[in-house]
């Protein structure tokens, strides 16, 4: 009852601001969300500099920044630009893709648990990758391709199974959990079929790691993000309307099913590509949108804050794993798993205290 009493008096100061020009152009933005995004970008960049400076051979932050700006000495230039920078860029892109993909899925399914790693996209990608590792002994590129195709096939299967005159939140989550269970079974089967070397390689891949990532992983992911981002931004407003239910969105003139198909496809592509580049890094897609939302305290899908939060989370997790356990001793997926698990517990406890579950 006490909690209810405090809730009843809660009001919010209006935070939305609008910029208008004489030509009739107007843009609306949320001040708090803008501040959060700026802070996250700064945090991500700072963590990136720290991550580049970390390794068998530590480099001070000043030297890292100087080298990145093109004024470093040749020795540091090689270590930074050729060895460590691509890994950090992959971390940023993978984190951003997972954060954004998670926010899209959670918004479409209208469920904080409806993130792509829970719904089986991650496991589907893993199945594709394991198939390449175990059956075809494929190269790194072929494994990445397998992960991408696996994620896309899983996404398509999920959509078709959940489709009944349109896809609705609950059915999507339930079907997704079923698809996830199926993919886990396939992965278990593939592992039992593998010989020792392949199995070891598969298990490392399945943990999610950024070790040894170079520019080859950067370009495909960067291209995909560059293509998908404008598409997603263009559909962000209809997505916001979809959160009020299909009927209301329809009444407002939103092309409901088209918006959903476009955004789900984009989210599956982002998640599958991120998984192809770094393996199934757990919990980022689940936690980044929720953390971002708690910071912005703004309704709606919070796409850009979730994207920035994902990037920050992954770089910080990679930095932490290297700092605490030494270079490449602990795959980043383990750290995000631990952090994510703690977060989930905290979330459950606070929600329980607030009387919401």
């Amino acid at each position, binding site marked *: 009852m006490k909690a209810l009493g405090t809730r*009843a008096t809660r*009001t*919010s100061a209006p935070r939305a601001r*609008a910029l208008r020009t004489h030509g009739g152009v107007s843009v609306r933005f949320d001040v708090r969300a803008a501040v959060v995004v700026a802070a996250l970008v700064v945090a991500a960049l700072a963590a990136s500099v720290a991550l580049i400076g970390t390794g068998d051979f530590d480099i001070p932050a000043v030297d890292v920044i100087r080298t990145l700006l093109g004024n470093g000495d040749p020795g540091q230039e090689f270590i930074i630009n050729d060895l460590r920078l691509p890994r950090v860029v992959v971390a940023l892109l993978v984190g951003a893709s997972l954060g954004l993909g998670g926010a899209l899925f959670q918004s479409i399914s209208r469920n904080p648990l409806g993130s792509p790693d829970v719904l089986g996209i991650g496991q589907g990608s893993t199945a594709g990758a394991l198939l390449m590792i175990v059956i075809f002994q494929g190269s790194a590129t072929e494994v990445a391709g397998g992960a991408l195709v696996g994620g896309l096939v899983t996404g398509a299967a999920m959509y078709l199974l959940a489709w009944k005159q349109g896809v609705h939140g609950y059915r999507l989550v339930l079907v997704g959990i079923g698809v996830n269970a199926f993919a886990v079974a396939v992965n278990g089967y593939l592992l039992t079929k593998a010989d020792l070397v392949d199995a070891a390689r598969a298990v490392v891949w399945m943990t999610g790691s950024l070790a040894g990532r170079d520019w080859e992983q950067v370009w495909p992911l960067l291209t995909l993000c560059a293509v998908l981002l404008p598409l997603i931004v263009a559909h962000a407003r209809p997505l916001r309307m979809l959160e009020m239910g299909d*009927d*209301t969105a329809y*009444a*407002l*003139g939103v092309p409901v099913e088209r918006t959903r198909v476009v955004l789900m496809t984009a989210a599956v592509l982002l998640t599958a590509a991120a998984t192809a580049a770094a393996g199934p890094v757990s919990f980022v897609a689940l936690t980044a949108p929720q953390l971002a939302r708690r910071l912005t305290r703004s309704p*709606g899908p919070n796409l850009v804050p979730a994207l920035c939060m994902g990037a920050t989370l992954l770089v910080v997790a990679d930095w932490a794993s290297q700092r605490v356990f030494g270079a490449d001793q602990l795959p980043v997926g383990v750290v995000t798993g631990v952090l994510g698990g703690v977060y989930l517990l905290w979330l459950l406890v606070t929600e329980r205290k607030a009387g919401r579950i």
Partner: protein
Amino acid sequence: MNRLIADDVTLGYDQRVIAEKLSVEIPDNSFTVIVGPNACGKSTLLRALSRMLKPSAGRVLLDGRTIHSLPAKKVARTLGLLPQSSIAPDGITVGDLVARGRYPHQGLLRQWSGDDERIVRESMESTGVAELADRYVDELSGGQRQRVWIAMALAQQTPLLLLDEPTTFLDIQHQIDVLDLCADLHEEQGRTLVAVLHDLNHAARYATHLIALRDGKVLAEGPPLEIVTAELVREAFGIDCRVIDDPETGTPLVVPAARKARVAT
């Protein structure tokens, strides 16, 4: 010709046909209420009129053109709908929710004009939720929340507004409150309203045009004073009743007959 017409439509879900060759015209500037027993097809008809359900035969005409061939946003600027169930996103304020009604008038480069701001304010004022603007929707009472959703539909600024059972789940005070609000929108702002209602007496009191459905067919339509009779009620709902003058408004008042067993004792 009236602006909104269902012309010889066949409606249904999957293989189940709800209404066949149904034709209905919504008189311009009327407050039309659709009544009928459960599963008579009244909500289905409303969904078809609002473009949400595509007829398997026949067509729905908006301003003389097939509604399904018109661009979605264009329809949404002419015809608004308050669905039976809507979801208020977590942590949204009343002002933000009502502002979302402006969506069909906005675009990527026109996100929040001065007009938008003014119309949202006016919509909140005319529904009496202006002072709630900064409150969170999830902490409002059911009646307040329904007013907020109506305010959102008003902000859409459509000459035609469809309401699917707007009084369901509300107590009698808030039912009257919402219906009075609808009557104001009709009389003062000159909008054409179409509502599905369960309560026959509410329908008879507020409607200027009544459509009685049964099994997907129109039993009667016209002003309540002319069409609400004991025979119509028996035919539509299968109950015996007396129809008397409402002592407050003079509109027909349906009083169901008492059970015979109880009358006898």
